[in-house]
């Protein structure tokens, strides 16, 4: 694959921004990505996003020849990059703008989501009180811990490790270092998940420009990041029915496809982002990526291997748990991987040249993976 990312940027404000609507956040994220790439809107001919890419295109004066509005939740933006790469290879577009904007905290211009008692979740989950993501995404976690001889301390270790990163990142929303005991003593919203094990809820957005080398200028190529491999899959629609989150799962299939396409080994990965709306996901994600044996990711985290200075730097912005989380975090995981590969990150990993990004979505029932690299 010859796809490259030549523009990547986040909105100026991450956190609380009641003056910017969802559309406005998408527009700002898109404009900043275009500026990063040195492009004008008129040079974009493909648009993608989980919130009305056709509305975003119109707001930016773009007349697209290709539109992708895939929305499977938080990992949608990884899929947009994958789909854009395919569209560019097919000649359906030359430069694709992927945008994200979400007013998760202020709810400015947010599309209402009323209950749907006829949906699968409305029939088989919500009547039991399973609606907030921290009551659904989290349901398989205790099984994973139990089967691997672990307890909630393993979840707390993830928070401890990621705060070591976020404490070095000025834009991160939660920057205080924490101890295991402090994480475990925090209020439980849905035991075993205490507040620091659950993502932030913020306003923000971002944008990416995807193209192929043949369409890029020398200056764009200089800071470009290669899309080496990609994968995507989905599971049964209800989390209770996912056969095995670390075995037969969308994330495992997406990871295997991405590594096969990238033609690189797991040992060549120097940086990892795993979508962490909740603290069990980095553990399960590392195992789905094949970067830790099943049940052994917690040992890596406890040993400091995912922390600054470790062999497998993970969620180096602090992640959804500590950097930002608008509701659909995947855009921010990609942004941090691009910053690390450009050597422009706030908490930079020395000499990093490859990154694996794993996104989750649909309450743990969809996934996508990108393998990114820099020469």
């Amino acid at each position: 694959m010859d796809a490259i990312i030549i523009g990547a940027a986040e909105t100026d404000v991450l956190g609380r921004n009641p003056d910017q609507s969802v559309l406005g956040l998408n527009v700002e994220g898109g404009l900043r990505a275009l500026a990063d790439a040195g492009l004008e809107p008129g040079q974009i001919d493909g648009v993608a996003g989980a919130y009305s890419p056709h509305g975003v295109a119109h707001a930016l004066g773009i007349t697209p020849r290709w539109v992708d509005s895939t929305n499977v939740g938080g990992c949608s933006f990884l899929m947009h990059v994958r789909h854009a790469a395919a569209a560019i290879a097919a000649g359906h577009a030359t430069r694709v703008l992927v945008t994200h904007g979400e007013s998760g905290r202020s709810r400015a211009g947010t599309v209402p989501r009323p209950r749907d008692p006829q949906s699968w979740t409305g029939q088989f989950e919500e009547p039991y009180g399973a609606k907030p993501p921290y009551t659904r995404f989290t349901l398989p976690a205790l099984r994973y811990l139990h089967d691997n001889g672990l307890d909630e301390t393993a979840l707390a270790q993830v928070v401890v490790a990621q705060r070591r990163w976020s404490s070095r990142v000025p834009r991160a929303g939660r920057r205080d270092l924490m101890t295991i005991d402090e994480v475990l003593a925090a209020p439980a919203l849905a035991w075993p998940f205490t507040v620091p094990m659950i993502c932030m809820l913020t306003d923000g957005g971002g944008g990416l420009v995807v193209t192929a080398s043949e369409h890029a200028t020398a200056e764009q190529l200089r800071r470009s990041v290669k899309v080496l491999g990609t994968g995507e899959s989905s599971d049964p629609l209800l989390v209770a029915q996912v056969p095995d989150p670390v075995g037969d799962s969308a994330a495992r299939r997406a990871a295997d496809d991405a590594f096969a396409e990238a033609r690189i080994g797991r040992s060549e990965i120097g940086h990892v982002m795993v979508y962490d709306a909740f603290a069990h996901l980095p553990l399960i994600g590392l195992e789905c990526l094949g970067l830790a044996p099943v049940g052994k990711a917690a040992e890596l985290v406890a040993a400091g291997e995912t922390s600054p200075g470790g062999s497998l730097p993970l969620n180096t912005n602090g992640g959804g748990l500590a950097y930002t989380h608008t509701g659909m975090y995947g855009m921010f995981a990609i942004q941090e991987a691009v910053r690390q590969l450009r050597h422009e990150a706030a908490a930079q990993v020395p000499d990093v040249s490859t990154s694996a990004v794993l996104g989750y979505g649909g309450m743990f029932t969809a996934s996508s993976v990108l393998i990114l690299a820099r020469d």
Partner: protein
Amino acid sequence: MSGEPKPVPRPTPETRPYWEATQRRELVHHRCDGCGAGTQHPRAICACGSTDLTWTSCTGRGRLFSYVVVHRPEPAFADEAPFVLAIVELEEGVRMTTRIVDVPADPAALPLDMDVELRWLERGDVNLPVFAPAAPEGT
């Protein structure tokens, strides 16, 4: 009590047999006659390729597969917190989201793989299948 009513399911044409069975206090699953795999909600074609799928009665016995203890529910369920929201694996191999009732909302009382059995929670004119720790054999 919260002012917001608790949500109740509204059947679709595909799920009507499931919810009609609950009116008789019967739990059913959608079972493949080809490979025996079952799911809680219906599918058109089994992953094995078979289109012979039949609504089949469950024994109502299963095991506690995983759970969370919800301390901060959405407002409609504020009066019930804390409660045990669980995945139960039925004897038929089907996993479903449900509640564990008649037990303290305390992890010490909720070991994984504990045997559970079917109970019914009335919500208006809807019967929701929930589970409780199984009575010891012979009682």
